[in-house]
């Protein structure tokens, strides 16, 4: 069969699920961040696919914004990881329970 919208969407979903698994299952904060990027990318694919098959350009505009946000997020996220690493000497997410009172 010919490649259509569904194919891109399924690809997007698969990448998203892989990213999700990485976010939830990995212990290294950097890898978690990387997995988040995969998820964002997956979303971008879906956006672009809709844009392509739906004939509206807004999807692509949004992808640009997502890229901007992703870049900003990576910058801040990595800075945070480094800051935490300085104070805790680890980037193991299971050793952080800062959200518990």
């Amino acid at each position, binding site marked *: 069969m010919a*490649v259509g919208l569904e194919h891109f969407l399924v690809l997007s979903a698969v990448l998203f699920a892989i990213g999700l698994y990485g976010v939830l299952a990995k*212990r290294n904060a950097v890898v978690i961040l990387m*997995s988040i990027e995969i998820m964002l990318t997956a979303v971008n694919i879906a956006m672009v696919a809709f844009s392509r098959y739906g004939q509206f350009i807004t999807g692509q505009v949004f992808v640009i914004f997502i890229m*901007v946000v992703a870049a900003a*997020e990576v910058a801040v996220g990595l800075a945070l990881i480094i800051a935490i690493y300085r104070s805790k000497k680890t980037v193991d997410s299971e050793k952080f329970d800062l959200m518990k009172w």
Partner: protein
Amino acid sequence: MGMDIAFWILAVVSVASALAVVLTRDLFRAALFLVLCFFTVAGIYATLSADFLAGAQVLIYVGAIGVFIIFAIMLTRDSRQGSPSGRLRLPALFIGFLFLATMIFALVNTDWNVVAEVPTESTTSAIAHAIFSEDGFVLAFEIAAALMLAAIIGAIVLVRDK
């Protein structure tokens, strides 16, 4: 037909490299697989005739974010320990599969209003129009710029030595 073949190759590679990112224990390799993944995604954009985005993808993701991550890996010594999985591996796997199944079920069963004809001209000018025209996304664009600036300053503040 050529497009179809390209898609299949790119899709398989991107999924495989994404899997490698989350499965490999070596942090540095994971980063490299991530870069590979981003590259293939840029290719996917190209098959979707989004040439401008494909370029941006290569510049931003492959270039900037990839480098960032590799820097971060080098700055955090934990990289030696590699990238083990945590206690939540099985639940995460389960939830991930369930989520995937749900999404696929949903999108396969949805009737997408697809426009059949494929435009082939470059989208760059169309995007520029959408952003910079009279009632476009100028304000959002400016805000995005400001956000970037804030993120950069924030990152500097965070990593600066006390």
